[in-house]
């Protein structure tokens, strides 16, 4: 048994562009996806997620690098000989076949005996909660139902790895949330490796065991939801996942992980860094809004006074925009958990805000 279900080693993909030049869609991507894992590729539109997935499926061949599935180099192996199956974004159900025929198709291609096909199709449709839908046609089903048929059609083949390209993209919010939970549950039950492509960070965070954040054809960070959210390794990840304040400054001192920076307006910030930084390095300090306290803490490492410039109430929480000396803007997010839930401050108020050293991360890239 190989260590990884799927491994991308230093993969690049270049497409011929409109005027003959080459467009790099994926650049030196390396990823290791473990057996039985729910692995997501997350990134903005055009960052190369689909292209990466299609190279695993075999619809595209890498310009450089190699895809390994269960330790076997795939080389030029055509899609129909790879032990993976894809759930397409537009479902790609065969319009001239019934649902039953759609689901049976893959088994027929594998030469599974007829009697067994019937039973497995039935079972697969029950698994996606569409029992007895064999005789219907794809266009008679709703988007969510078609989605499930597509899922059944792939799962019925019991692939080692299932590739899903934004499978919930076309569904409305409510249905999407339901399907997210269902997919996750299904994945646990069948124990198949899922490689899931999405540009929805919330979706990736709630469903995945691990997430690869991609941008501009490269992988920026791979880790579980907590690592990616709490310890982003670059500004892009910090910004793309959740919300972040960036404070610009220069490093004045480093002592192990603890770093001191001088900000504009004469402020001093105590933050943490993984990397070692020379004094005078320009850097950003990333602070999540929910880690900023609107009420000063006597013992807090970082404590500044500023003026409230905006108050935005969003139900569960309220955002306060605070202007610090030196004209840096910081957003604080406070939960509305007090019984009266009146705003803690009003526009124009002077406040003292605070956050801890651990809440502030120094990022240079």
């Amino acid at each position, binding site marked *: 048994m190989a260590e990884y279900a799927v491994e991308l080693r230093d993969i690049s993909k270049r497409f011929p562009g409109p005027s003959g030049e080459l467009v790099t869609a994926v650049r030196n991507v390396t990823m290791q996806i473990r057996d039985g894992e729910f692995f997501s590729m997350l990134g903005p539109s055009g960052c190369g997620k689909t292209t990466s997935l299609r190279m695993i*499926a*075999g*619809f595209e061949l890498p310009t450089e690098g190699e895809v390994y599935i269960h330790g076997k180099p795939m080389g030029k192996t*055509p*899609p*129909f000989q790879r032990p993976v*199956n*894809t759930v*397409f974004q*537009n479902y*790609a*159900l*065969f*319009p*001239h076949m019934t649902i039953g025929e759609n689901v049976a*198709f*893959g088994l027929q*291609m*594998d030469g599974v005996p007829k009697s067994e096909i019937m039973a497995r199709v039935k079972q697969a449709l029950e698994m996606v909660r569409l029992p007895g839908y064999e005789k219907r046609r794809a266009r008679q089903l709703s988007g969510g139902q078609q989605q499930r048929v597509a899922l059944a*059609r*792939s799962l019925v*083949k019991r692939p080692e790895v299932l590739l899903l390209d934004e499978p919930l993209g076309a569904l409305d919010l409510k249905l999407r949330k339901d399907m997210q939970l269902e997919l996750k549950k299904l994945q646990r039950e069948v124990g198949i490796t899922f490689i899931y492509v999405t540009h929805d960070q919330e979706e990736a965070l709630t469903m995945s065991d691990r997430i690869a954040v991609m941008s501009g054809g490269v992988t920026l960070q791979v880790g579980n939801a907590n690592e990616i959210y709490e310890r982003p390794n670059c500004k892009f990840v910090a910004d793309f996942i959740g919300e972040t304040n960036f404070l610009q400054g220069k490093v004045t001192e480093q002592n192990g992980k603890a770093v001191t920076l001088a900000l504009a307006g004469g402020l001093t910030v105590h933050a943490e860094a993984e990397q070692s930084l020379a004094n005078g390095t320009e850097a950003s300090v990333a602070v999540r809004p929910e880690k900023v306290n609107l009420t000063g803490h006597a013992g807090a490492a970082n404590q500044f006074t500023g003026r409230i410039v905006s108050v935005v109430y969003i139900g569960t929480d309220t955002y306060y925009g605070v202007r610090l000396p030196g004209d840096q803007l910081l957003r604080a997010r406070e939960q509305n958990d007090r019984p009266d839930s009146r705003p803690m401050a009003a526009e124009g108020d002077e406040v003292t805000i605070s956050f801890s050293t651990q809440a502030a991360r120094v990022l240079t890239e």
Partner: protein
Amino acid sequence: MIQTLRENKKLQGLLLILPTLLWMFGLLIIPLILTFVTSFGGRSADGNVIYRFSLNNYLRLIGLTPEGGFDPLYLQIIWRSLTLAFQTTILVILMAYPLAYFIARAPAKRRNTLLFLVLVPLWTNFVIRIYAWIMILRTQGVLNSVIGWLVGLAGGHFQPFELYPSQSAVLIGMVYEFLPFMILPIYTSLEKIDNSLFEAAADLGANALRTFWRVTLPLSMPGVVAGTILVFVPVIGTFIVSDILGGRQVILVGNLIQRQFLDARDPAFGSAASIFLMLMTLIVTLYYTRRFGFGEEIAAA
């Protein structure tokens, strides 16, 4: 007035189809009724139509002479027309499908050029194009000269094909003539198939051949059906190709009808043959579309 129009969907629809309706009525329905009425008539000695009700023309068509004898002449003509139309349609499908497939799979930029090339021959007059085939097919024609020259090079003796005039020449001419009408609808339906369906098939384990049989071919059937109708119907009624390439030997229903109106001056019998041809076409196409479904591609083409 405008208010009623706005609310009345039926009235709107009626207004929209009115021009077509008038056109069809004037140029299709009325002539059809006239033909139908005439088909029961007879021919006076000086070649005029006598209007009456008699089934004689129809009986004559199926070979029953007024004297009670049987003459299969016209049935043979009908049979010849049918077989030729079937042969043409099948050959055209066999030739058009690969070509349409090739065009549909070509890079998007090249596709328009290729389609354009398919249509280029249609710019030359139909009759001229068919005459050109005489030059190719006749005994001293291009085809025989080229083959003769090649065989001569190899040191053999070549007995030229006597293709013109013959039924084979008519078949060749028809296939040539109607090929574009099959290529276009098949191309349209092939081109419409979402590429992800091919990928899905491959993903589920189908190789190229099985993808073709299970996905491509069934999904392009509407185009084949549409093309078949676009080819079969005109072929069965045509008279020009058979006139030019068949000499006087290959008489089809189309030629028969034409001759009744022009040479034989018997419009009544011609009308009966027309109605008969129409019914025959209708039955074949009805059966065919029932069997294989009706192609929306007709409209697209």
